[in-house]
C-alpha cells in the first residue's frame, strides 16, 4: 500500500511538472518526457510488476490529456515499464550510468511502439523522418534528465532499502574479490 502511494505520488508530480514546466525546457523542438523517466527509474528500482503498473498509470494519465488515440500511451509505457523492471538490480548503487542507458532505451522503444500502434489505428507517422530528428534527441535528453531523477529516487524511495542494498553491494564485491 505504501509502495502504491509512493508510485501514485511520484507519477502525479511528474505528470504535473510535465504539463506545466517541462515544455519550456524544449531544445530544438525536443522536450523530455519526465513521466517516462520516472516510470523507468521506478521500474528499475522496484521490478517488472511495479514497473508495468507505473507505466500503465503514467501512460493513462498522459492519455487523459491527449486529443487522439487514448490508450496508446498506457500501452507503450506499460511495455517499457515491464522491461525496465527486468533490468532491476538487486543492488541499488549510486552509479548513474546504467539507469541512463535504461532510460535511453525505454525512451527509444516507447516512441517506436507508439508510432507502430498509431499506424495500426490509421495514424501514420513516418519513422524514417522522425527517428534522428525527434526520437533519438529526445531519448538523449531523457537519459540526461534521468541522472537527477535517479539520485532523487535513491534518496526518497530507497531510504529504507538503500542502506541494506549498499551494504549488500559491498558484501557481494568482497565475495567476488575473495573468489578471485
Amino acid at each position, binding site marked *: 500500500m505504501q509502495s502504491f502511494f509512493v508510485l501514485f505520488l511520484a507519477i502525479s508530480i511528474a505528470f*504535473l511538472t510535465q*504539463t*506545466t*514546466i517541462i*515544455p*519550456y*525546457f*524544449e*531544445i530544438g*523542438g*525536443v*522536450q523530455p*518526457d519526465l513521466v517516462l523517466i520516472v516510470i523507468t527509474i521506478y521500474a528499475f528500482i522496484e*521490478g*517488472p*510488476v511495479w514497473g*508495468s*503498473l507505473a*507505466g*500503465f498509470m503514467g*501512460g*493513462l494519465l*498522459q*492519455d*487523459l*490529456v*491527449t*486529443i*487522439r*488515440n*487514448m*490508450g*496508446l500511451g*498506457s*500501452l507503450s509505457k*506499460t*511495455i517499457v515499464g*515491464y522491461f525496465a*523492471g527486468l533490468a532491476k538490480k538487486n543492488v541499488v548503487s549510486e552509479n548513474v550510468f546504467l539507469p541512463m542507458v535504461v532510460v535511453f532505451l525505454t525512451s527509444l522503444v516507447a*516512441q517506436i511502439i*507508439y508510432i507502430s*500502434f*498509431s499506424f495500426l*489505428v490509421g495514424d501514420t*507517422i*513516418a519513422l524514417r*523522418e*522522425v527517428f534522428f*530528428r*525527434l*526520437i533519438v534527441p*529526445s531519448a538523449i535528453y531523457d537519459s540526461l534528465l534521468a541522472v537527477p531523477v535517479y539520485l532523487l529516487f535513491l534518496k526518497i524511495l530507497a531510504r529504507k532499502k538503500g542502506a541494506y542494498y549498499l551494504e549488500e553491494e559491498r558484501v557481494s564485491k568482497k565475495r567476488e574479490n575473495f573468489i578471485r
Partner: protein
Amino acid sequence: MRFRRGSLNKLTLIILILASMLILTFYLREANDGILHKSQVLTTNTLASLQSGVSKVASPFNHAWEYVNNIGHLKTENERLKDEVVSLKQQIITMQTMEKENERLRKLVGFKEKTHYSTLPARVIGRYSSNWQLILVIDKGSKDGISKNMPVMVGEGLVGQIVKVSSSAAQVQLITDRKSGVAAQLINSGETGVVEGQVTGELVMNYIAKDVVVSKNELILTSGLGGVFPKGLFIGTVYEVKETPYGLYKDVRVKSYVNFSELEEVLIITDALPILPFSPEEGD
C-alpha cells in the same frame, strides 16, 4: 517460487496491455460525448486550477530559461529586429493608405465584409505537448462563452483552434500540430491551399499547383474556406518553395512569426464561427 514470480510478472503485463487495448478500442469507437472523451474533459477541468497556480509560480524560472536559451542569438536578433522595424514602418504607412482607399471603394460599391472580430484574452496555463501532439491549455472555458473550433490568435499570427472545452479551461491545437490543417490563401496569386503542421513542428502549404508563381516572403492568410477560420487572418510567410519531379503540387514551406514555445497569452476569436443549425459540440 521463481516460476510463480515470473508468471505473476507476465500476467500483470498481459492484463495491463489488454486493458490499454480495450481503452483504445472503446475510445476509437465511442462518440465525442462518450465516457472516455468526457473523462478527458473532466481531467482538463480538474487540472486547470492546479496548472494555473503552478504556471504562475514557474513563470520567472521559465523566463530565466528562455533568456539562457536565447543568449547566443540576442545580438544578431537585435540587429535583425532593428532592420525589420524600419521595413515595417514603411509597410504600415503603405497599408494605412491602402486601407483608407479600400474603405472608400467598399463604400462606393456597397460591399460589406467583416474585418474586425470580438476577441477574448486568455492565459496559457499548461501544455499537453509531446513529440506527437502540440496542445496548449488556456484558462477560459465554456462558462466564458468558449466553444469548440474557435480560432486562437496572437499579434504575430494564427495560433490554432479550440479542440476541447471544459467549464473553466480549454485545449488549443496549435497550427504546427501534425494533425492541424488551415484553409489558406497566397496573397499575390490568390491561390488557395491548406497549411498543415508537420511532426517536426514545421508548417507546409499543400495543394499549390506547379504552375502557380510563388515568391519568397509572400504573405499567407486564412482563406475562410474551411468553415473554421475566418478569412484574412495572418498565418505566416513563404520561406522556401520546392518542386518534386513527379509531384502534382509545389512544396511551399511556411514561416510563422509566432513563438509557439513561449506563448503566455492568446486571443480567442469568439464571433468568427459560422452560424450552424446545430451546436458545434455535437458534430466532429
